[in-house]
């Protein structure tokens, strides 16, 4: 069955949350709750109580980036210092740890920040094409609920949304 998209706009989070809650409880055939996306002008993490915990994995990128950066920094510096045939150390430690810690720390941060941003782009799906339905009002003051469902489920979904003071509904055929 062909899938369609529907975007409902609300004036506030309370109505949008109530609509999402009812959609989840309604258990409509042809509609998977995970295909529901909330679009909002501000971050509203309270919605996770209804949407369920959808995890963010950026921190794993951060950990990997920071460790890679730190290790790369330390081994690059130590490798260069260990070239003691070229650079006479006069009895001083070949790889002095206290000063090397400074650059290792800087590289740790550099790797952590850069890879975190990369992780953010991957996890958030950016850069992204415009989704099938988008309203500029979402970046102003409206809360949007984007739903992807079978055509047969659309009427019921619309009915649920209309119960909650939806200010506007946009519909479009999905791909």
């Amino acid at each position, binding site marked *: 069955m062909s899938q369609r998209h529907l975007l409902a706009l609300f004036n506030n989070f309370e109505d949008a949350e109530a609509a999402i809650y009812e959609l989840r409880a309604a258990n409509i055939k042809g509609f998977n709750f995970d295909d529901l996306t909330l679009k*909002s002008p501000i971050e509203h993490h309270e919605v996770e109580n209804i949407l369920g915990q*959808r995890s963010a994995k950026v921190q794993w990128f951060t950990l990997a980036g920071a460790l890679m950066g730190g290790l790369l920094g330390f081994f690059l510096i130590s490798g260069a210092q260990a070239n003691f045939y070229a650079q006479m150390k006069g009895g001083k430690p070949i790889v002095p740890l206290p000063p090397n810690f400074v*650059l290792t720390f800087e*590289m740790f941060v550099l790797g952590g920040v850069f890879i975190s941003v990369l992780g953010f782009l991957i996890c958030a799906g950016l850069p992204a094409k415009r989704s099938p339905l988008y309203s500029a009002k979402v*970046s102003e003051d409206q809360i949007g609920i984007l739903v992807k469902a079978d055509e047969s489920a659309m009427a019921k979904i619309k009915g649920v949304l209309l119960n909650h003071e939806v200010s506007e509904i946009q519909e479009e055929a999905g791909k």
Partner: protein
Amino acid sequence: MKDIREDIAWAKINKDVLGSLENPRKLYWVILFCAFAVFGVGIGCEVYQYQTGMGVANLNNPHVWGLYISTFIFWIGMSHSGTLLSAILHLMHADWRKPIYRFAEAMTTFSLMTAGLFVMVHIGRLWQFYYSLPYPDERGIWPNFQSPLLWDALAIFTYLSSSILFLYVGMIPDLAICRDHLHEGWRKKLYTLLSLGWEGTDRQWRNFRVTYLTIACFLIPLAVSVHSIVAADFAMSQQPGWHVTSFPPYFVAGALYSGCSGIITLFIILRYVFKFEEYMTKSILKKIVRLTFAISMVWTYLNAVEFASVWYSHDQASKDILIQKATGTYAPFWWGMIFCGSIVPLTLAFKRTQTSIPVLFAVSLLLNLGMWLERWMIIAPTFSHGYYPWAWDHDQWPSLIQWGMVFGSFGWFTILFMVFCKVFPSVSMYEVKEMVYHRSLHLKKSETAEQGAP
């Protein structure tokens, strides 16, 4: 006095901030014109120095750094408060930072870019600026990784690139607003490109929140490390007046101090020029002023610690430098530093001055003058009264070329900053909406609780 009105409509926030991108007050153009003029002076001086040689700057042994490195440290210091305060206040959930953090972060980025210029300028041979970067020579020998000057290069690069990313990531939702609400043209194309297709989905916000928090966590120790490393440039040498244990915290406090004063100055300018009176409120200004006052007292304390430890250290050379600073050629500037850095901020302790815009504008400029003098007074007296007696009669006054380039750097910074504020939203729209939303919820809750109370 409220930080912000809770009943500002979200659409109005968009309208006001987007309006600032198109219709600033006329003073904006006056400032930009003056900045170009001052920058032109700096360019002229650099061209003359480039053509003629470093002699025209009156830089010679023992004064090999002069105003160039003093001003380099000043701009590095200026960069500190923006990102550092933004990150600390973000972690502390201090929501009053929301209307002001964007321009403060921009200040960080442009200060670092200005500081970088002085590294090149003081070399003289501009085309050899890459000498300051760590790379192996033709025999495969790397530079000395134990040198704080090399740490400096990497630390500043890390801080600059991380600050740019912090600024950019935090701006993505606002760039999407600009994309959606501005007319067709080059701006719209730019915002479309930079906003990366942001639509404010729950997935995007969720990852955004974690990323922003993570970068903030990295930036706090990074900012502290950067100025500690700048302090190490001096403290790890054996020069009298520089070989001081308390230099790293002293430099960090000084950097925070000058950065906070810079934020006050720019706050007042932006508030008027971009008609942000409703967002950059006096209540928020008061909070920054109180913070600045607290930091000024920390800076004063660390100065006292330094003077006392030198005085009672039995290190005669360091003691001579201190006496020289207070009574010698540089005495007017050294006392000027003490006056501007420790006496002037006492005015900020009074409630009446904490919200008086003209007084705060003047005071913030004086504080930054004091902080610039501080950097000069770290460098010049040690060069002119170090261990070598031959240096003692070399009080080389910086030439007009040096002064011209110092003034030029202010023009360069102002151009970058003002152009940024005209092209990108200098008040974070989505964060101000969050601030208004959460405060209105809190207000509703407390009203309901009051009504429900017996």
